Each structure stands twice: as C-alpha cells, then as structure tokens.
C-alpha cells in the first residue's frame, strides 16, 4: 500500500460524508472519479482478504501434484474428494472433531451460566466483599494466557485431572471477560423490573432465572459467540492439559498434521481440507450472528 493511495482514500472517506454545503448537491456530483477509485481500492483489498480462503477450499479438492504446480487457480483440473475421504475414513479426524465439539458445548454452556450468575451478583446483589471480587476478576483478565502455560499444567497435574475431559473443560468453564460483559449488561436493566417479581414472592435465584436472564438475550448471545469461538479455536490449553491421542482436539490434531507428523510429503490438499472443515463451524456461527458481531453501531447513521 503506497502513501498516495492512503491519502487519497482518506480524502474520499471524509469528504462526501460531511460536506457542510447548504445546497443539497453533496457527494452525488463532485467526486465521481474518487468514488471509483475508492471502490477499486476497496475491492482490491477485499480480494486480498478473501482470496486465500477461496484458494484454500479449491486446493482441498485438488490432487497433490496440482496443488504444487498450480497453486493459484480456483478450479481444480482434476476434482477429487481424496483429501476429505482420507480425513474422514482413514484418520483420527472424526475423533478430533468430536472432542472439540464436546469441549465447546460444555464450555459454552458453563460460561453462559456461570458468567451470568456472577455478573448478576456483582451488578445487583449487595454483599460484603463484592468490590474485591470484582476487582479480582478484572485483574485476572490482565494475565496473559501464554504466561499460564506452565502454571496451568502444574495445577491440573496436581489436582489429578491431567489428561482427562475434566482437565480440558473445567479451567475454561469461567471467563473473566464474560463476567465483565454480563455485569455491565445487568446494570443497564432497570431495578423496578425485579422489584415486581420480589413483591410477588420470588427468591433471588428465581428473579435471576425467570425475570432477568430472559431479558439478557443480547448479552448472552455475545457470550455464546465468544466462548464458542474461544473454545473451538483454543490450542495452548489443550497442549498442556492432555497428551493421549483419544483426547486430541481439532486444533491439536491439525497442528500435528501441519508439522508433518502424520504424513510424508507436503500433503497440502489434506492439510487444507482439515483446516477448511475446522473453519466451517466458526464460519457458520459467524454468518448466523454476523449482524450482531459486525453491528458496532450500524444504524447510528442514517443511510
């Protein structure tokens, strides 16, 4: 990217949007050529961002020799399912997939439940030490994950849950950022809503479960997306929490595949096919909730 395009594009982004000219001609007339440049730049960048994924899918259907000789084409000359057949019928890939799915489901459920419970308590319930608990949760968010590789292994080992589903799932069940998000959301709900239920004689849990939680759908969906993505894509925790092949997750398995432990030669179609399948669940999730993920404040500006 050169400096000149950068400048031009910035001119373009700002100029048409807020031209304080009282006559209503604005962007429609003036910078047609600039508009064209802008779209050209945007399309070029978008291609750079998307093309790798298209190549990835295309290559997974190519033969190995074609992947090497013609890496860039999007249409395989000899279309073959060999990579996928091999993955599903003659490898541990289905097992990895199942493991990832199990962990992801439990972690997501756990995070939704525990984070909203704690978020509610921190936002609404009065108890001594609330401030300290919240401060601790925030402090914990600042600890970088990579620094915890060895520490986590030590504790998991000490607790005797090394190399088990418990060791994979338990430490991920709670997420400080999730607590933070839920707390912020619950604070935005008016207290009067709960008062009503309390007068009707509902206990604290009841108020939380039947009144407040259903109102928290937007925040819950955010947590679901984050924990799904997080636990599906998690790698380093599984590296330190497990060793046996039966507990290998997709990330661990595919990483082993990538470094060539399971095969000779480059095997690009096979590796890329594995990466494609691994990406599908997050991609589906992404496209279902795309509006919510991308909508930072869409609609704030009238089109």
């Amino acid at each position, binding site marked *: *990217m050169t400096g000149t395009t950068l*400048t031009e*594009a*910035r*001119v373009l*982004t*700002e*100029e*048409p*949007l807020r031209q*304080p000219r009282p006559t209503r001609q604005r962007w429609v007339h003036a910078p047609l050529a600039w508009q064209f440049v*802008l779209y050209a730049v*945007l399309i070029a*960048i*978008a291609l750079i961002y*998307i093309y790798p994924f298209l*190549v*990835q899918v295309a290559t997974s259907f190519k033969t190995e020799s074609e*992947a*090497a000789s013609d*890496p860039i084409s999007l249409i395989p000359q000899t279309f073959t399912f060999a990579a996928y057949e091999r993955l599903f019928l003659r490898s541990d890939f289905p097992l990895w997939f199942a493991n990832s799915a199990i962990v992801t489901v439990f972690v997501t459920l756990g995070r939704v439940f525990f*984070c909203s419970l*704690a978020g509610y308590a921190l936002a609404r*319930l*009065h*108890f001594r030490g609330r401030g300290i*608990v919240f401060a*601790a*949760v925030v402090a914990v968010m600042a600890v*970088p994950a*990579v*620094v*915890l*590789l*060895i*520490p986590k292994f*030590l*504790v*998991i080992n*000490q607790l005797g849950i090394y190399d088990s589903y418990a060791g994979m799932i*338990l430490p991920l069940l709670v997420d400080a950022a999730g*607590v933070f998000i839920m707390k912020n959301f619950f*604070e935005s709900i008016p*207290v009067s809503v709960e008062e009503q239920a309390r007068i009707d004689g509902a*206990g*604290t849990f009841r108020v939380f479960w039947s009144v407040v939680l259903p109102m928290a759908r937007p925040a819950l969906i955010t947590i679901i997306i984050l924990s799904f993505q997080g636990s599906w*894509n998690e*790698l380093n925790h599984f*590296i330190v929490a497990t060793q046996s092949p039966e507990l290998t997750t997709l990330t661990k398995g*595919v*990483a082993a*595949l*990538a470094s060539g432990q399971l095969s000779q030669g480059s095997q690009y179609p096979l*590796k*890329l096919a*594995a*990466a494609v399948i691994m*990406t599908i669940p997050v991609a589906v999730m992404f496209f279902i909730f795309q509006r919510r993920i*991308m909508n930072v*404040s869409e609609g704030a500006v009238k089109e």
Partner: protein
Amino acid sequence: MTTTVAAPPREGGSGRGIRRGEALAGWVFTLPVILILGIFLLAPVLMALWVSFSDWSGRGSPLSANVRFVGLDNYASITTGGGLPTRDFGISLRNNAWYVLLVVPLQTALSLFLAMLVNRAILRGRGIFRTAFYFPSVTSSVAITVLWLFLFSATGVVNEVLSWIGINGPNWFQDPNGIVHNALAAFGVTTGPPALTENDFLGLSWWNWLAGPSVAMTAFIIMAVFTTSGTFMLLFIAALQNLSGDVQEAAMVDGANAWQRFWRVTLPQLRPTLFTVLTLGLIGCWQVFDQIYTGTQGGPGKTTLTPAYLSYSSAFLGQDWGQGAAIAFILFAIIVVFTLFQRWALRERPVSRRRARQYQPSQPKEAKR
C-alpha cells in the same frame, strides 16, 4: 454504574434493610467464578512463581520436600549465564521484538485505514467489505497457519504472484536470513562493523540483534497483520461513529483540508481507541505461540523462536521447568512494562505551552503570573 454502589442500610428495624439472604446469594452466585479463577489462574501463577525459584525436575509434586529453593538461579541462567539458555532467550527476544516493532504499527495503521474506508454512510455494500476484512479474525490461528504454510511455500501462491512481476520469491518458511541483513547485502554490506559484531547482549552480537526478522518470521508478521486488522477495524469503526460531526465541520469551515482534518481533528479524538488497539496489539504480539507451535517450532535456525514458545519448549520438551517458568515471568514483566509505558506515553496531557501559543495569535509575551 448504577446507584447500587451506596451501601444499603444494614440496621434492622427500619424494615427495608438488606434483603434477607441477599449476601448469601451473592456469594453463592459468584462462588463458581471465584473457585475456578482462583484454582486455575491465581494458584497456578503462585505455583509457577515457586517453580521459577526452584530446581523442580518435573517429577513428583513441585511442592514436595525434596524440591529445593535455588533463588534466582533460573533467572540468571537465561539472562547472564552466557550459555545456550541465555543465547536462546536472547534470540527469542530479538525475534519477538522485531515482530512487535513491525506488527503493532502496521496492524494499527491498516485497521484504522480500513475503518476510515468503510465508515462512510453512503458506501454501497460496506457490510460485505466489513465482513471480508473481519472474516480472517474469526478463524483459528491453527487453520490460518496451515493456510499460510501453503500460501508461502516455495511453490505457493505468494511466490507465483511475485513471479508475475519478475521476483524470484524465497522459500519463506525455510529462510533464516534477516531482512535487514538482506537489504544491506543488496548494497554489498555483508559483515557489520567490529563495534557491532564484537560486542554482544544476551549471548547475541549486536549485529545479529539488528538482523531484522527472518524471512520466515516476516511471513508470520504478514499473517498477524492479516488476521488482526479486522478486529481492530471494528473498534475503530465504533469509535468513529461516536464522533460528532461538529468538530469536523468547524475544522472544515476553518479551511482545514482532509489530511489536516484527519491528522489534527479525527486522530486526537480517537486517542482512547488508539490506546486500546495499541495495548491489545502489544500484549498479543508478545504472546506469539500458536503459529510457531503449528508452523515452524522455532525454525529455521531458531529465527521464529519466541519467548512464549521457548518457555513451553524448555519446560515441556526440555524438562527444564524452572527456566521455562522464569521465561514466562520475564515475558509477563515485559508485557506489563510495555503496557505501562504506553499508558504513560499516550496519557491525556494538558496542552503544552508551546502548543497553546499557536492558538493565541496576538500575544505580546508570555504572561507571567
């Protein structure tokens, strides 16, 4: 924040008081979080701190009686020992420092650029563009690394594209040459001045510190920029949409051109977001692990070795737990120091006097009070 911060009246008798059982419920509700964070975050950090000061060999419990306290020995052997551990640590710091130096500015600039591009209200299909830019951010680092190994392989897409313009691309992930050294070599400089080659730091000569990221590391740098720019773009878009147009218009009335408006008006208003993006970028960049584990395991020639991966490999592969833990804590310290430095550098400053004078055109002399 709501008004609930004020402590509720605790005395009985008034009748309203704290609701019965509320304190208990509060603790019960937060208990799972406290337990899990305590057991899997707090306790581990303390335990690892102990391991970093001990000679634990990986067998039995690190808390058992026959594990000895060795003080700063582990830290010393990776910083001042002068042996292989020191050299490896130096190399990993060198690699990661170059990575940070290139990735953080690039990803920040690119994501701001993308945000400015797609933030226009009248842009058609901006949803599609945003999706395109953001999509790489949701895929797993493992999957992206696999893709990258293919794209940047000797006969891969990148080299194919480079060949169109007559460039014979390198064998990216096999090439340990530093790009600064490569650039110097193009001018015929292949050895550094004695001042640089004969003095060293952490077992690595200054000439080698200045080698630049290896070609292999450069591929990872491009990958990091590619995968993170979308996330940060979203942050910048959110910030841009919260800016009011008034200041822009005022600047426009004053005759500021687009570049001045961006540089003098928009950018200062984005300061908090800029801080967030830089900090997150910095924290993330010092933690490069997944890519290295999946892709190169530190090779070629240790030029993609990072402290995070070195910490893992010395503990889990080399069984040198004390050193691994020590590296982790040094890494932690580095991240904290950089974050604090950034906070300090980007703090809200009162307008300097020199600056202030620019806005007061006809001032005879500085008023002395």
